[in-house]
């Protein structure tokens, strides 16, 4: 037991920053557990940004930038272990992360308490807004994406919508925000189904929705659930009614093209000024197109943090936070223009309106 501790402590010491030679940031993402695919993709975005900055000569006059990426395991206690390690051991000014709202919130709260900068790159729960000064969201919260989706659905002249989302923090947020925005625009959400993740079938949920005879199915799902729902909507033949996906690529990446033919949806826009180059770099490094829609936020987070450090001329959290507020006004990111509102949340986000017609097409 003592030996194990000693060994671990030695390892910990060896990972301390080589003094002043580099600037170290931290990230907490789910590299294991149910959201591991997404977390891994977030990490790719972070890596690409680090590579790019160091290629361009680093920060603060030639210091290397390094980001320590920790695994949250999809558990709040492990995520906090990781965040505390980053703050108290590695002493990083900025921590990027997490993916699930249920984990991002405690991590963000901790970072704000510690006076560090928190960059949210994956959670869209409305509760993120209340984390306090020092916490920034690079991703539009539920109200942004759901508002956009509601407008898009109304524009397509669909009046009755059936909503199906996972029964977790993300899904509950989307459902609530979409309902709000959609009713405000004169639409009616005829049924909302929150499915429990981890089932082998969602036939019954889908059939329940079918009874309410909607004009459109609005959904957001990921991983195995997305694949199952798309397949079963096809099998049940209810894909003859239009389907609208919030984050189309996330919803359909694991599905057979046949199942999702004809779906509408919104997705994140990578074609910012920096976007095309970023997409090319991603393909070059990982030999595949974007795995999920989330890597870009990791990339932007590191790029913005680096820019803020440069601007502030210091790696002190307070200075970085102040600089971020200034930068975050039309910053040209890979995910489009980034502008923070008074609560440091991304106020709008350029989304793509997409449709799947023998592959993803822009509408």
């Amino acid at each position: 037991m003592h030996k194990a501790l000693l060994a671990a402590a030695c390892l910990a010491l060896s990972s301390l920053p080589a003094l002043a030679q580099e600037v170290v940031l931290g990230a907490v993402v789910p590299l294991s557990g149910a959201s591991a695919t997404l977390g891994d993709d977030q990490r790719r975005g972070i890596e690409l940004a680090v590579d790019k900055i160091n290629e361009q000569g680093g920060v603060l006059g030639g210091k290397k930038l390094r980001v320590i990426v920790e695994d949250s395991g999809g558990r709040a206690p492990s995520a906090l272990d990781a965040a505390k390690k980053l703050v108290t051991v590695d002493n990083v000014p900025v921590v990027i992360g997490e993916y699930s709202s249920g984990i991002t919130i405690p991590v963000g709260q901790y970072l704000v308490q510690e006076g560090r900068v928190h960059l949210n790159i994956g959670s869209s729960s409305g509760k993120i807004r209340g984390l306090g000064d020092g916490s920034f969201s690079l991703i539009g919260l539920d109200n942004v994406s759901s508002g956009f989706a509601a407008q898009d659905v109304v524009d397509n002249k669909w009046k009755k919508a059936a909503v199906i989302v996972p029964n977790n923090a993300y899904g509950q947020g989307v459902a609530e925000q979409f309902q709000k925005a959609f009713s405000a625009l004169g639409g009616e959400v005829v049924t909302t189904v929150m499915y429990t993740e981890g089932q082998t079938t969602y036939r019954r949920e889908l059939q329940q929705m079918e009874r309410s005879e909607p004009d459109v199915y609005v959904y957001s799902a990921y991983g195995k659930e997305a694949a199952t729902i798309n397949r079963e909507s096809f099998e049940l033949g209810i894909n003859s009614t239009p389907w609208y996906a919030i984050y189309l690529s996330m919803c359909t990446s694991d599905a057979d093209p046949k199942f999702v033919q004809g779906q509408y949806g919104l997705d994140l826009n990578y074609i910012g000024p920096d976007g095309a180059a970023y997409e090319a770099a991603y393909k070059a490094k990982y030999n595949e197109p974007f795995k999920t829609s989330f890597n870009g936020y990791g990339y932007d987070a590191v790029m913005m943090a680096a820019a803020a450090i440069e601007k502030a001329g210091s790696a002190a959290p307070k200075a970085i936070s102040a600089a971020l507020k200034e930068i975050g006004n039309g910053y040209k990111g890979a995910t489009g223009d980034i502008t923070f509102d008074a609560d440091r949340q991304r106020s709008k986000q350029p989304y793509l309106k997409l449709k799947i017609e023998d592959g993803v097409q822009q509408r």
Partner: protein
Amino acid sequence: MVQFVVDVLIRAVDLALIAIGLSSVYSLIRFPNVALVQYATTGALLALGLQMAGLPLVVAAIAACALVGIIAVVLNVVVFERLLRAGSAIAMVGSLALSMVFSAIFLVTAGPRPKRFELEINPPLRFLGARLTEHQLISVGISALAIGVFALILFRTDLGRCMRATATNSVLASATGIDTRKVTNTVVFLSGVMAALGGIGLSVKGEMSAQLGLDMLLPVFAAAILGGLGNALGAAVGAVVIAAAETMVTNVNFGPLFGESVLFIPAAYATAASFLLLVVVLLIKPYGLFVSEVKRV
């Protein structure tokens, strides 16, 4: 109505094969083997691996079932025979631990993303107003066949008689010239095959992932316990009951009762329904619906 029956049936066969495996092993070694749900995932992943290696799906599936059966026997001999000496509760906790090790292996070998067999996909068939796909039909058919064969083995063969004899009274079985250890391992093999077949059936209809087994854990246990652990065919009935309960919760429109057109119990409670049913049944019939003997510890 027809759709309801079809839905119940499709869900029931998801659960039935694994539940039967669980129950029949329990009848011989007297502890619920949690790892069985992981054997299902192993079967599906092995079959996929073999298919990707170039085997036709049918061959791959058969080979995977056999392999899983062998794995089950090896684990029984190496792990569970040892654990059982310390008692059935220890063996059960051990099987849980083994499940976690399985999860770790799946993560490293197959990764976290969902996968599908390479299969032709066709639009659904219509049958008396109900929709079902070819794959669902095949899966239901194979499961029904497997259950039938299992019932035949159990009730019409020498092996089946030996199985039932050993389950009823293993001391007497040895005294009758039955090699009870061999019979037990044969049943363990069969349970592995059934579980693997269940996993493959599930994946033919849909997706497989590292999580598949653990996601099935509670519903399968609910089915097996409802049928009375140790009663193999009771488990099949239990699966139908669980499937019906879940389907009722999600698909019965309570709207008319409350003067609204559409009112459902939130789908989020579909899984809770089967667990609640399990708890209620255990309260009323402590050893399941189809086991009448009450053994007091």
